[in-house]
């Protein structure tokens, strides 16, 4: 009879982890739909950034209240998950609190888990209040439609329930309570159950234990469908984050080749391209859909947890324009998911669905409102770069569609004709000297 429980546990565990692994594979495939970019450089700096920004939460705490609460939840979750290891071993082998054999250290361990669980519980409630009662502006912007709002709340409920189950599980574990070591919090919860019979208390303990581990597996699998992927992707995302100065935009290599050719007096303008170079020009300049963006931008999109710090710092958004850097990331992710589902439905081949990231998700009005000031990039706690997506899409609009606003076309014509954005003669450039 005992083995049935072990077997059920093993099956649940395999399904839970297996389904998650399947979705992770899909996630990686989708990210790889982006164009190639070589980021194998400067590994020490990249590891350092990951350690400081993701592991060390250095940019989270720039906003002290949200930062502190976040650090509690983050540390709590990582540390309490040591307990999950014990649960898994107990579940598979039918043991009970297998680690308790380590002696008094076990009490210290569980005691600290219990304290953290309470701190996480309180922090999560404060997070919920900030979203739903105080209604902080950045959680109620236009792009925060019903799903993003619900998603955020579901995550908070999940965490509340998991912490509660952990404490109830400990409180109703009679042998554990009798040990009277490590039950720093649960000893105050235990009296609630004192009126029940011993068998009922045991039943509650078993129920809490099962619901706790099943809840964790459900939560794990919920990640892929929610904004909460950042708990995993923040690490690679900060590793691959931009290392060059924020003001430095990449130079398009394909354009460099063209320009060098145009400037080279020794090149025969009528010559046919050398053998084998025909296919080398990119199909298009800039990005109109997710496959035109590089894979780091796509990783950025999956990493975004919609905190909205970028949008709250954006000068365009602050002055009522439609642009919201968070929406740029959410749109990119939503379109990428749509493309991924399209590929799944069409046996691994993307079938044109008459849609694209430009216009169907991100409007031109949003793209042209950006001042390229980098406030969004600076604000992101996990090194997401919305500006590079905006730039790639502007490149598409200008170089593929000649669809810049008319004043910008005038500005560019001026630069082409007389080397300045205004219609002044280049020969007058030094006139100021004598004025």
């Amino acid at each position: 009879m005992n083995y049935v429980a072990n077997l059920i546990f093993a099956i649940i565990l395999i399904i839970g982890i297996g389904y998650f692994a399947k979705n992770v594979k899909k996630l990686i495939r989708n990210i790889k739909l982006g164009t190639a970019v070589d980021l194998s450089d400067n590994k020490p700096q990249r590891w350092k950034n990951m350690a400081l920004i993701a592991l060390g939460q250095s940019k989270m705490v720039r906003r002290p209240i949200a930062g502190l609460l976040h650090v509690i939840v983050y540390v709590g979750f990582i540390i309490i998950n040591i307990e999950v290891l014990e649960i898994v071993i107990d579940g598979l082998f039918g043991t009970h609190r297998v680690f308790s054999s380590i002696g008094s250290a076990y009490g210290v361990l569980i005691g600290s888990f219990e304290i953290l669980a309470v701190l996480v519980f309180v922090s999560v409630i404060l997070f919920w209040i900030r979203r739903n009662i105080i209604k902080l502006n950045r959680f109620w912007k236009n792009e925060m439609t019903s799903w993003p709002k619900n998603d955020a709340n579901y995550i908070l409920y999940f965490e509340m329930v998991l912490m509660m189950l952990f404490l109830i599980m400990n409180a109703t574990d009679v042998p554990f309570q009798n040990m009277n070591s490590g039950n720093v919090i649960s000893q105050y919860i235990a009296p609630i159950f004192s009126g029940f019979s011993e068998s009922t208390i045991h039943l509650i303990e078993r129920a809490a234990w099962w619901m706790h581990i099943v809840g964790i597996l459900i939560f794990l699998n919920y990640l892929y469908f929610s904004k909460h992927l950042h708990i995993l992707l923040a690490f690679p995302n900060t590793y691959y984050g931009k290392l060059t100065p924020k003001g430095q935009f990449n130079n398009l290599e394909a354009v460099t080749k063209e320009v060098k050719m145009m400037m080279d007096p020794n090149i025969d303008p009528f010559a046919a391209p050398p053998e084998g170079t025909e296919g080398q020009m990119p199909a298009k300049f800039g990005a109109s859909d997710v496959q035109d963006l590089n894979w780091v931008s796509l990783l950025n999109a999956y990493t975004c947890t919609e905190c909205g710090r970028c949008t709250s710092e954006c000068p365009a958004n602050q002055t009522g324009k439609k642009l919201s850097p968070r929406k740029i990331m959410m749109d990119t992710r939503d379109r990428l998911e749509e493309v991924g589902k399209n590929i799944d439905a069409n046996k691994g081949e993307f079938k044109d669905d008459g849609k694209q990231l430009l216009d169907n998700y991100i409007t031109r009005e949003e793209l042209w409102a950006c001042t390229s000031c980098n406030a969004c990039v600076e604000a992101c706690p996990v090194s997401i770069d919305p500006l590079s997506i905006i730039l790639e899409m502007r490149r598409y609009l200008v170089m593929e569609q000649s669809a810049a606003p008319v004043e910008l076309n005038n500005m560019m014509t001026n630069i082409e004709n007389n080397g300045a954005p205004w219609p002044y003669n280049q020969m007058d450039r030094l006139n100021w000297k004598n004025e």
Partner: protein
Amino acid sequence: MSELLKVPTMAEYTAQGKQPEVLFWVGCAGSFDDRAKKITKAFVKLLNEANVEFAVLGTEESCTGDPAKRSGNEFLFQMQAVTNIEVLNAYEVKKIVTACPHCFNTIKNEYPELGGNYEVMHHTQFLKTLLNEGRLTIEGGKYKGKRITFHDPCYLGRANNVYEAPRELIQKLEAELVEMKNCKRNGLCCGAGGAQMFKEPEKGDKDVNVERTEQALDVKPEIIAAGCPFCNTMMTDGIKAKEKESDVAVMDIAELIANAQDL
């Protein structure tokens, strides 16, 4: 007064078989915009005062391509860049100073990959060096004790992490430096970047420069110091929109120092 300005060109230096210490990249705004020309002249006065052997490209200078690149026109940007790099390399330029953070960022960060490798300084960094080397002295003079706030240009601050040079110069004026709510890495854009300077803003409920000007006015400055010709225009327009022209002046740091010296 202007006949006192010494503004040699690279062509003149080369004709004499000499090489200047530094090239002053004037930029389009500094060459053509009436307000920015005053900044250019103030900076030249300081260069003359410190006996810096500098030269300009004059009619051989052309737009760096910054507004074209930020608009998405990579072709036009690279055409400009490659042309400028050819001129700069032909003159064997090693060091460049500019009063425009956009030119600064583009030449410093985006030209090297295209073959243009120079030491590039913003004029506030260069002036700081002149002070440290004792080639230029600042006396507080007329700005002593004045309330001055500094508006960080995005392409100098966040884009390139230069926050201290302009502030040190203001402090050298013995002025009272006051910081806005959003400053340094959290500085709010003036609204001109990303080629916004050259177009009407998108529909919204306020202009960015007005928002930024309000932040500046909140700290009750007598002077808003800027380090970028475009920020200067935007903040000046903001002050006009708020009808504060008689109370608050928008000045470039080079102008503050030149005025303090009565140059």
